[in-house]
C-alpha cells in the first residue's frame, strides 16, 4: 500500500520520532549522568547536559574494582558475561540443531513423543525450576563455575522448534539428491543443512546472545565468588550500599557498558538477522 497524503506522513513521522525519543531519553540521561560527579545527584535535580567528570568516572569504572563488595573490575565482569552469553548461545544452537536434525530426518521410536517432551519444556524456564536446578548444580559441584553458569540454561525448546520448522521446509527432493550423491548423515548435516540454516542460526544468535547476556537471577544465585560475577547481576549489587552515597555516575557508566555488547551484536548481524526472520534461501 502506498499512500501519499501529507498529513499522514506528518503524523507517522511524529509518532516515530516520539517513539525514538521515549526509547532514547533514558539512554541519553545515563550518558549525561556518567559525566557528573557522584555528588551531583543528591541535590534532587537530574542533569540534562554533560558535566566535566566524564574522564574520571569512566576511568574509575573501567579500571578500578567495582566496589560495594564486588572485588573485580567492570571489564572483568564483562568478560564473565561474555563467556556466559556465548556459552549459552553456542550451546543452545548446537543442542537444538542436533535435536531438530534427529527429529526431522531420522525415524526412531517415540520420535513424536520426544518432540512433544522438548516442546513442553517451553513451560519450564529456569525461573520456574530454579530450586531443583540449583540443587542439581550444587550436587554436581558446579556452583561458581562457567559450566554452572551456562549448562542449565542451554536446553532450548524454542530454538529446537525453530530449526525443526526450518528443516521441514527443506524440499524432500534436496534430501534425496544428497542421498544419491552419497552424502551420509554427517556430510548432509555439515554440507547441506548447516549452510541452508545459516540465516536462521544468525537470527537465533542475536536473540540468544541477548538472552544470555541479560541473565540475572541464575548467576545471582549460583555465584558467590567474585571471579564469576557477571555484569548485569552486579549492577544491582553496586546499588545496595549501606554506607555513603550511591555512585550514580559510575552505575550509569556501567549500565551503558552493559548495553554495549548486545547493541554491537544487533548492529553487526542486523542484515543476516532480518534475512533469517523474513526469508529463506531454499
Amino acid at each position, binding site marked *: 500500500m502506498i499512500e501519499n497524503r501529507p498529513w499522514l506522513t506528518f503524523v507517522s513521522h511524529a509518532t516515530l520520532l516520539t517513539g525514538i525519543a521515549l526509547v532514547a531519553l533514558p539512554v541519553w540521561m545515563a550518558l549525561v549522568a556518567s559525566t557528573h560527579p557522584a555528588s551531583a545527584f543528591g541535590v534532587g535535580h537530574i542533569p540534562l547536559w554533560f558535566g566535566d567528570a566524564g574522564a574520571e568516572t569512566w576511568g574509575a569504572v573501567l579500571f578500578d574494582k567495582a566496589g560495594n563488595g564486588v572485588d573485580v573490575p567492570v571489564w572483568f565482569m564483562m568478560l564473565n558475561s561474555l563467556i556466559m552469553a556465548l556459552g549459552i548461545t553456542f550451546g543452545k544452537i548446537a543442542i537444538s540443531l542436533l535435536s531438530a536434525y534427529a527429529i526431522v530426518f531420522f525415524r526412531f521410536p517415540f520420535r513424536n513423543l520426544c518432540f512433544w517432551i522438548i516442546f513442553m519444556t517451553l513451560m519450564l524456564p529456569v525461573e520456574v525450576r530454579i530450586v531443583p536446578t540449583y540443587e542439581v548444580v550444587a550436587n554436581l559441584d558446579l556452583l561458581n563455575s562457567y559450566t554452572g553458569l551456562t549448562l542449565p540454561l542451554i536446553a532450548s525448546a524454542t530454538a529446537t522448534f525453530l530449526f525443526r520448522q526450518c528443516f521441514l521446509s527443506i524440499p524432500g*527432493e534436496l534430501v534425496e*539428491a544428497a542421498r*544419491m550423491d552419497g552424502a551420509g548423515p554427517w556430510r548432509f548435516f555439515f554440507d*547441506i543443512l548447516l549452510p*541452508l540454516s*545459516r540465516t536462521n542460526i544468525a537470527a537465533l544468535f542475536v536473540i540468544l546472545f541477548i538472552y544470555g547476556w541479560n541473565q540475572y537471577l541464575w548467576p545471582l544465585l549460583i555465584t558467590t565468588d567474585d571471579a564469576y560475577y557477571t555484569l548485569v547481576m552486579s549492577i544491582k549489587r553496586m546499588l545496595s550500599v549501606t554506607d555513603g552515597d550511591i555512585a550514580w555516575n559510575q552505575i550509569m557508566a556501567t549500565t551503558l557498558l552493559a548495553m554495549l555488547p548486545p547493541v554491537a551484536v544487533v548492529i553487526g548481524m542486523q542484515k543476516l538477522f532480518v534475512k533469517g526472520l523474513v526469508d529463506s*534461501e531454499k
Partner: protein
Amino acid sequence: MTDVILEKVGKTYPNGYHAIPSVDLSIEEGEFIVLVGPSGCGKSTLLRMVAGLESISTGELRIRGERMNEKEPADRDIAMVFQNYALYPHMTVYDNMAYGLKNRGMAKDLIAEKVSDVAAMLGLTELLQRKPRQLSGGQRQRVAMGRAMVRDPKVFLFDEPLSNLDAKLRVQMRVEIRQLQRKLGTTTLYVTHDQVEAMTLADRLVVLNKGKAEQIGTPMDLYNKPATPFVAAFIGSPSMNLLDAHLTEQGITVSDELTLPLSHPHRGAIVWGIRPEHLDVSDEHNADFALRIQAVESLGAETLIHGKVETTSGQGDAMVVRLSGPHLPDINSLMWLKAPAQYWHLFDAVTQQRL
C-alpha cells in the same frame, strides 16, 4: 546385454496403499525407456524404487546382474534428475556438479576435468561460478542433468524433468536429452505423464495404469496395436475414438443401430476404436456413417471436428475427426465418413484385451 531387470517388483506403502502390484521389465543396455501414465498411476513410485529412494516391497531389482534391493541409492551406480531440479541452493554450479564426486573421494583435479568436460557439453562453462538462483529454469535443468552426467552412471533416472519448463523450452530440451542420451549411450529410465514427450523420446514405452504395466513396446507398436482401450486412449492426440459396441454375425453394431460389416468369431460386448486421423471424408453413398458436427477446431495445418454419430434417436456416440489442412464445415451440418477396416481396433469389453 540386459542392463536393468525388474522382476515382479511391487510396492505397498507403509499406510497400506498398494501402489504397484507387480511389474516385470527388462531394459537393454543403452535403451531409452519411458514410463508413462496419468498422474497418480505409480510412475514415480516405480522410478524411486529403482533409485533406492523407496524400498522394494516385493520382487527383485537387478542392475548388470547384481541384486540391488538392499543397496543404498549412492551404491547403485545410478544418477537421477528431479522434477524441481533439487540443486543445492548454497553451492555454485561447479560445486553442485562436483559434490557427488567429492563424496566418492575422487581426486580434485580429476573432478575439475570431468566437470569442465560435462559443462562444455551442456554449454554451462560460463555459468560454473553462479548460484542456482541466478540461473533460468532451462539452465537449472541443464545443471541438474550435468550433475547426473558427471557421475558417469550405469543408469539415468528422470522424473518428469521438463514439467516446469515453458512449452518451447520443453521441446528444445526434449530433443537435447535424446541427443545426449544417444551420444553417451547410457541406459535411461524416464518418467512423464505427457504422451508426446513419451512417444518422441522412447525406444520403448511402458504404459502404467493404476500401478499395472498395461503395455510395453515401441512407440509405433503402441500406436498401431494398443493392447487395451486404456493404451489406445492414452497414446495419440487427439485420443482414439472408443465406442461401446456389439459384435454379432452381421458385424459390429455401434450406437445401437449402426452396423459395420465384419466377420469375426468373437461375440458380445466390445469396444470399437478408430483414430481421428484414420476417418475419411466420403459421400452419402459410400460412407459408413454420418457425423452431426458440434464443434470445429482449426489449427491451420489440421482441423479437428467434434461431432456425434447421427442416429434416429439422436443419442449417438461422440467422435473426433482429424483432417489435414483447413476446413470450415457448418456447425450442425452432417459429415459423411468412412472408417477403413484396416484401422479398426477391437477390444473385449470385459477383459479389456485386444481382439
